């Protein structure tokens, strides 16, 4: 047993082995997204098995063993420890990010090559938004939602001033003079992992996740006990809200609400945090009615379990099919949650089968490595183009729109903006606005010259490029190869966006292997209905299932003794639309006939959707 994987080994079944060969043959002739729905869905499950076998790598825990607390067996600990009772450090806050590729593939370029080509040039030439390209199948809540979720899953921490990268600026660059050092733009490095390195890590750099890795709604509840106690009302298990029903201000973070994780705060996050804080409190009321003897702690923790599972369900069967609108994917995500509703299949495959009964309630399995979020996962979640530079704020009870800039809706200005425009109108406005398409030339310009408290002026687009490079995430072509796709030989094979291949060839000096991951993902031609690239999707296939399958609270312990019958029914019977309507019933007409709450809502007054 090697320390490399902490003893976890993947076991492939005979059926999986046969299907693997069969789909290798099929995919030689037909891509998965061109297959009929059921075959396409089976193809995705074959991809997932391959990825489970080859694309999970442990990098060590990087934490000391946590102490046991009462209740760790029955509910989620604040820091995510003891989710696995045998491996208590797995997935806890402070544990290292894992990898999706063999560790020798995850080594940064040498210093000379690391900043080539210039991230700033890429930001200006390939990423900068010329005109806003909307994603017309989605509403802006979908953009806020994914940030809401990533704040649950990972944080590398706030970079500190030390040994910054210096990016030389070309003549004519508009980067402000007073932000330059020696004619260069400075980019702070990712917070280093200073824990002792295991010798088998080789040259692969490691970084720690400050948040719990689990899908535990840590963005609402925090990733440590102190923070959790700060957000609680300490009565009936509820989260503290003000007399107006809104989250209170965080005294340590001007403009942000007091919640589990409130970095990079803006109105979109405030809306969702307030919505699910209210949901938590309603769940507490339901539990209190049924279990009147339960104390504050018991009510809080049980409500957290239910709320976290509901969020996971919404993400799985609403948000994901919303952004990846392909019938095979829609079918697969529903099967992930509740299985394929076919009696014959269930009888043949048995109750432990993911395909027949869904991952939920199936046996916990870590496959080939201990559970951890991965650096590659964070890399494919660089979805900043979803954010528009401007949005129209509407009133639900009156016609007319107010044109607002996103930069005025974030950071210190957030709470003021929320107070001015109100929770209901802002939710309605988000539901009736489009996010940006996840494409080249659609990176929000305000984020390319972004002021953040305690930080130098930021070009987030350039920073996104640097982050992948410094963390040793393979560049685009090798990334493709490592997720099981063919390498491309020319820039034209990546993209058909007019002029993009030519620009990329010039910037990357004709070397297609040097194309940065994010650039390749944004440039790549998409399968029908997809909101982002197929290459990024391969990581999603693996990790979306893994977040559920590795977590005992979604698998072995997804049972009434832990969740209560009330809790299981609540998760079963609710979705994003019912949550919205429960807390904001005024949205009823806007959501009338809308099947997916992340699709555009009805515009009740004033001008209709430009695209309709």
């Amino acid at each position, binding site marked *: 047993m090697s320390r490399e994987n902490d003893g976890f080994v993947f076991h492939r079944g005979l059926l999986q082995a046969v299907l693997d060969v069969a789909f290798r043959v099929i995919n030689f002739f037909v891509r998965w997204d061109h297959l009929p729905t059921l075959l396409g869905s089976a193809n995705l499950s074959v991809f997932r098995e391959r990825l489970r076998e080859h694309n999970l790598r442990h990098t060590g825990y990087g934490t000391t063993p946590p102490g046991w607390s009462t209740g760790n067996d029955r509910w989620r600990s604040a820091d995510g420890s003891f989710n696995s009772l045998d491996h208590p450090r797995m997935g806890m806050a402070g544990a290292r990010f894992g990898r999706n590729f063999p560790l020798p593939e995850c080594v940064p370029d040498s210093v000379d090559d690391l900043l080539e080509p210039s991230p700033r040039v890429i930001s200006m030439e390939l990423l900068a938004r010329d005109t806003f390209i909307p994603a017309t199948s989605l509403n802006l809540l979908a953009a806020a939602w994914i940030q809401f979720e990533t704040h649950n899953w990972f944080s590398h921490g706030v970079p500190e001033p030390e040994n910054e990268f210096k990016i030389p600026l070309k003549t004519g660059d508009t980067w402000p003079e007073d932000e330059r050092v020696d004619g260069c733009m400075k980019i702070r490095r990712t917070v280093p992992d200073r824990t002792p390195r295991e010798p088998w890590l080789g040259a692969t750099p490691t970084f720690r996740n400050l948040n719990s890795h689990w899908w535990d709604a840590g963005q609402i509840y925090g990733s440590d006990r102190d923070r959790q106690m700060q957000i609680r009302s300490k009565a009936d298990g509820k989260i503290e809200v003000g007399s107006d029903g809104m989250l209170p201000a965080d005294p340590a973070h001007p403009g942000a609400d007091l919640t589990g994780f409130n970095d990079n705060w803006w109105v979109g996050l405030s809306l969702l945090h307030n919505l699910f804080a209210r949901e938590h409190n309603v769940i507490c009321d339901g539990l209190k009615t049924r279990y009147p003897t339960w104390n504050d702690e018991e009510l809080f923790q049980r409500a957290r379990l239910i709320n976290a599972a509901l969020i996971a369900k919404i993400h799985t069967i609403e948000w994901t099919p919303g952004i990846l609108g392909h019938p095979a994917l829609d079918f697969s995500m529903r099967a992930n949650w509740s299985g394929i509703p076919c009696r014959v299949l269930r009888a043949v495959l048995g109750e432990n089968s993911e395909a027949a009964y869904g991952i939920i309630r199936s046996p916990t399995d870590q496959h080939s490595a201990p559970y951890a979020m991965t650096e590659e996962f964070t890399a494919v979640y660089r979805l900043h183009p979803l954010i528009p530079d401007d949005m129209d704020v509407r009133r639900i009870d009156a016609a007319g729109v107010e044109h607002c800039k996103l930069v005025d809706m974030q950071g210190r200005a957030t709470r003021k903006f929320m107070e001015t425009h109100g929770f209901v109108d802002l939710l309605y406005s988000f539901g009736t606005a489009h996010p940006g398409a996840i494409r080249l030339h659609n990176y929000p310009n305000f984020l390319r010259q972004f002021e953040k408290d305690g930080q130098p002026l930021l070009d987030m687009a350039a920073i996104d490029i640097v982050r992948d490079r410094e963390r040793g995430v393979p560049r685009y072509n090798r990334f493709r*190869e490592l997720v099981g796709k063919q*390498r491309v030989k020319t820039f034209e094979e990546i993209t058909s966006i007019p002029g993009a291949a030519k620009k990329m060839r010039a910037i990357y000096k004709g070397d297609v292997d040097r194309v940065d991951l994010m650039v390749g993902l944004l440039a790549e031609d998409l399968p029908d209905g997809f909101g982002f690239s197929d290459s990024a999707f391969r990581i999603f296939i693996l990790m979306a299932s893994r977040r559920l399958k590795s977590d005992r609270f979604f698998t072995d312990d997804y049972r009434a003794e832990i969740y209560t019958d009330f809790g299981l029914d609540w998760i079963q019977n609710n979705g994003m639309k019912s949550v919205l309507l429960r807390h904001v019933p005024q949205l009823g007409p806007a959501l009338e006939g809308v099947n997916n709450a992340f699709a555009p809502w009805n515009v009740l007054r004033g001008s209709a959707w430009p695209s309709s």
Partner: protein
Amino acid sequence: MALIITIPGLVRLALVRNPDELLRVNDAAVVTRSLSGRGGLFNRSVAAKLTVFRAPDGDIWPAFRDRHDPLRAAHQASLESALSKIDALLQQIAPEITELGNYVGGRRAHRSMGVVVQQAVGRLFFPDYLASEESYAAARTLQAWSSAWPLRAAWLRRSGALKAALDRIQTASRGNMACAHATALAMNNIVKSIELMRELALHGDNLAKIEPKDALLRTLRAPARVVRETRDGDFIGLIRLRSRTLVLLAVENARQQRASDPGFAFFAGAWNQCPAHGLVPALLSNVWQAARTRATAGA
């Protein structure tokens, strides 16, 4: 110019023999020590062979650590520092040098010369290192494994000989992976050099005529081939290497083209410079000198 062979699905390799080219390829950013096994069946089989050179807990043998691995640099620096006390170390292994000198001078050895070399090398790390016919056989098994054809490789693995050899070497090396590498793989080049010295010494009055320094230049041997892989495609000088090409650096072949430079065999001055680049030439010179001394004394 490098020889490049590509047969889709079977092999993608480049054989580099020109000394300048070899150094350029060795230094290129896209060329790595770790092998992914991609590129064809042959590439996969070579990569699979090298994966065994790890400690039981997954630690990588120093010679297989990648360029940017901080532990590689640290190991290299500390070992180089330890091996830089050449006189003291040669004094420490004086009995083995004498025994090797006797062998070079033509006397029959009462044990395999390889055992003596292994013990000499082992005692550079642990003064009480004890080599035996069994430990040398283990080293030969590992050397054979590295270059074995598929059937023999399969036999070595299935029979348990490979595992037994690894266990024996690692036990003898007390968990010191640099020692394991030196006493299992690297020592083979010294064995070859000693054999050549013996041939040289037995020919006419070479032993008296040839100075130790010249004897060293005529008998020093480098590893026949060192393997690398290109992570991504790139031009290195005039060679265009595609991604996932298995690169065979024919070090011995190239060294023969640079026979006047003993440092070439040790990648002296390169990032992967052998920490024993000063010690091994001194050891070989001393062995030749010991053979001369014995011959003089015998006369």
